[in-house]
């Protein structure tokens, strides 16, 4: 409730997070991070238009928020979660400092105290001054270098689109996995994960399911595999 945050104006996940906290008139703290987690997730869910190359950044923060929030749901995460909390909290504080500074910088530019230079070189009669060692085959080589440098810029965005898995899709996948077995190991959910983003999304999806009380999770040892079971089947 009350996340009356204007859409499409976020420069990134930290910006969104800060806006959510400030719209609730909270200070930056662990408690307020946990408090706005649902609002954050809802925003990400409800904005499929977030460009895929940025979605991964949003999901990284989502997973860290869920770590923090999940302490309530999954007490065994106690020790691990603390480090994450402090981390995100101070990262957000720093981000806020620079965000505030950027407003000061904007005001400074707004004063229009521009400094001007003269760009004209004094007239020197030099005629024609070619690069003596340059040949046309060297030029072809230079251009091939330029073209190669463009490769990741023009190619990778498409790859990212193919790679990014939506949380919804992952939730369905986990649900169908448990539908066929009474319980399933988290490692098997991750078995076909292609990227870190997908691992995060899977974990995120798992925590969502826990929150919705669809599944329960248990873990034999710290860092051990997580066993997911349907609520009906759980002891």
């Amino acid at each position, binding site marked *: 409730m009350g996340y009356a945050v204007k859409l499409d104006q976020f*420069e*990134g*996940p*930290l*910006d969104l997070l800060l806006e959510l906290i400030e719209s609730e008139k909270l200070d930056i703290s662990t408690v307020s991070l946990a408090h706005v987690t649902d609002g954050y997730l809802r925003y990400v869910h409800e904005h499929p238009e977030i460009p*895929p*190359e*940025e*979605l*991964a*950044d949003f999901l*990284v*923060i989502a997973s860290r928020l869920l770590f923090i929030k999940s302490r309530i749901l999954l007490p065994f995460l106690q020790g691990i979660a603390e480090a994450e909390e402090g*981390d995100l909290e*101070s*990262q957000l*504080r*720093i*981000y806020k*400092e*620079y*965000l505030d*500074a*950027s407003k*000061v*910088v*904007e005001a*400074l*530019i*707004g*004063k*229009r*105290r*521009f*400094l*001007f*230079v*003269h*760009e*004209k*070189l*004094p007239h020197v009669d030099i005629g024609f001054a070619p690069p003596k060692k340059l040949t046309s085959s060297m030029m072809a080589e230079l251009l091939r270098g330029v073209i*190669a*440098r463009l*490769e*990741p*810029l023009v*190619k*990778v*965005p498409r*790859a*990212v689109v193919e790679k*990014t898995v939506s949380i919804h899709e992952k939730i369905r996948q986990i649900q169908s996995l448990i539908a066929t077995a009474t319980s399933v190991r988290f490692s098997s959910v991750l078995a076909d994960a*292609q*990227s*870190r*983003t997908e691992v995060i999304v899977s974990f995120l999806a798992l925590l969502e399911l826990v929150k919705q009380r669809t599944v329960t999770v248990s873990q034999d040892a710290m860092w051990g595999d997580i066993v997911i079971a349907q609520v009906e089947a759980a002891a």
Partner: protein
Amino acid sequence: MLSSKIESLLFVAARPMSMKRLAEACGASKEEVSAALDEIMAAYNVDGRGIRVLHNGSEVQLSTSPDNARLVQDFLKDETTGELTKPSLETLTIIAYRGPVSKAELEQIRGVNCSLILRNLLMRGLVEAQGEPYDPQTTFRVTMDFLRFLGVAGVEELPEYDKLRSHENVVRVLEMAVNKAENAPAEAGEASPTEEAPSQDPA
């Protein structure tokens, strides 16, 4: 006299000049050039002068003084407005205060991939790379042109420069980020369209 020579070269160069280049041209050591520049800056960068000496890293350039901005702009019929979008401002601010700064540090602070915004600022000449823009070791700093937007002779004149530059928390979080990056080098590349060499295309 060295300071006279430097003053002449700065006047004709019409571009930012490195101390190294000045030292070469004048046949002096970098230390001598640096000392002479201090003298020149002390003479120019005071109230009531119409010329300023801007400095950025090891580069210097002459410009008009901020008090006369309106007069000069009218004289040149210049139409600069200095409007920048929010992501540009945010990125420029971090680079101005923390520069030279690597892409990884920048992304750690902004929490978002910065490849495209960096490319945009590089193309507009507001940021410059020290090294190949796609090399992860490369650091970025703001340009003399950006200082000229701000109306300051150097980044040190920015409000709360020392505080934001050496903020204890910033340093700590950045160290953590760097350690993390060293331990898991693959992790940074996930969604970044430009930082990879073609051969490292993430599968």
